[in-house]
């Protein structure tokens, strides 16, 4: 689907995603003011975008509730500049009523703001290193079933494996990998439950932050390992693994 560059309607998706740079956002809002069809589309697409948010629902800490309810006692409500409606309450009744129905939807999920999440945030920075894999890498990382498995390597580096069963692929990212001396590289391995190892690609010995799509299909792999190997890699590991990250479920 293509639209001419001048078509102001084309920006509606990016607008709803808050993905327009501010000047373009202001221009689009100006356009919206005079375009009823656009406002309808914004409302419809926002409903879909809100579902993306609802899917992430988690439990919030109880202290936050107390803090927030205390705070609003000192915050004055704004009144919209329009003629007062009969029985208008300060807190919009429409808002409260609409939420009575919404409460049933308040899906709650567990949030484990674990080390793994932090490791993931840091590990994905290494994506820059994966430019050669660009789009395929992004495709894997944004797969709806992508799972992340993080771990520490024996040399203190942080590593993570992102797995998508639906794409039958995985990616490896590491932060603070030490630079290797001599003519050596890092080699990645898929490990099967029975213990068999399949080479899954090389990372340069220059170390630091690295990331790559693993070579070959995920198949029956239950873990990903990393070793140091001579340049060009080996068919089977010739050194002890720096780490093995379990990707089993």
């Amino acid at each position: 689907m293509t639209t001419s560059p001048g078509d102001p309607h084309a920006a509606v998706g990016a607008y709803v995603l808050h993905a327009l740079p501010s000047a373009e956002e202001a221009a689009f809002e100006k356009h919206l003011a005079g375009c009823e069809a656009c406002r309808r589309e914004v409302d419809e697409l926002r409903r879909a975008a809100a579902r993306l948010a609802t899917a992430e629902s988690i439990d919030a800490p109880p202290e936050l509730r107390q803090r927030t309810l205390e705070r609003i006692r000192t915050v004055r409500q704004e009144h919209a500049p329009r003629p007062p409606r009969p029985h208008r309450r300060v807190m919009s009744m429409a808002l409260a009523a609409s939420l009575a129905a919404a409460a049933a939807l308040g899906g709650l999920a567990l949030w484990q703001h674990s080390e793994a999440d932090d490791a993931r945030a840091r590990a994905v920075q290494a994506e820059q290193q994966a430019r050669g894999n660009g789009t395929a890498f992004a495709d894997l990382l944004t797969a709806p079933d992508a799972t992340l498995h993080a771990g520490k390597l024996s040399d203190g580096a942080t590593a993570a494996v992102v797995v998508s069963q639906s794409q039958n692929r995985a990616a490896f990212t590491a932060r603070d990998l030490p630079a290797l001396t001599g003519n050596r590289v890092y080699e990645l391995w898929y490990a099967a439950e029975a213990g068999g190892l399949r080479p899954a690609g090389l990372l340069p010995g220059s170390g630091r932050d690295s990331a790559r799509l693993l070579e070959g299909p995920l198949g029956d792999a239950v873990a990903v390992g990393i070793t140091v190997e001579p340049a060009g890699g080996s068919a089977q590991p010739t050194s002890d693994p720096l780490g093995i990250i379990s990707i089993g479920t």
Partner: protein
Amino acid sequence: MRSADGDHEAFAGVYDALVGPVMGLACRILRNTALAEEVTQDVMIEVWRTADRYRPERGTARTWVLTLAHRRAVDRVRNVQASAERDRRAALLSAGRPVDEVAEAVEGRDERRRVYRCLGRLGSMHRVPLVLAFYEGFTYVEVAQALSTPPGTVKSRMRAGLRLLRACLEDG
């Protein structure tokens, strides 16, 4: 004062109904619990302050509040990254919150399943720009750079992607 107390009660209802998705969205975008709590509180205070602007004819309260929340979380992640690690942004091509961190037997899992299933059906051409913009706070220009795709194309795909997502979600 009675009327104000009644409002406070009504607000508590709003808070309870929506704090879960607001906080979850903020956590997903900011990847930092403390920042996410700040944003959640800011959003809820803004809801309180501007409740009178809510227009039922434009959509549900849920959509209104979550739109506000997304705006705030995205603004915050851009600020954090602008001040601290500007160049980190382009690298944040992250996976979503890993599914394995989420207990399977929880409420809300059906909604998550439905949404993820529909995302999965989009195909990468439409899914990738949508996910990068919505969950990572990328502008369409940044998405275009990250994917080496013309900006106009990315814009169109964001619109098409949202439409497809909507059609899939409303199918049930």
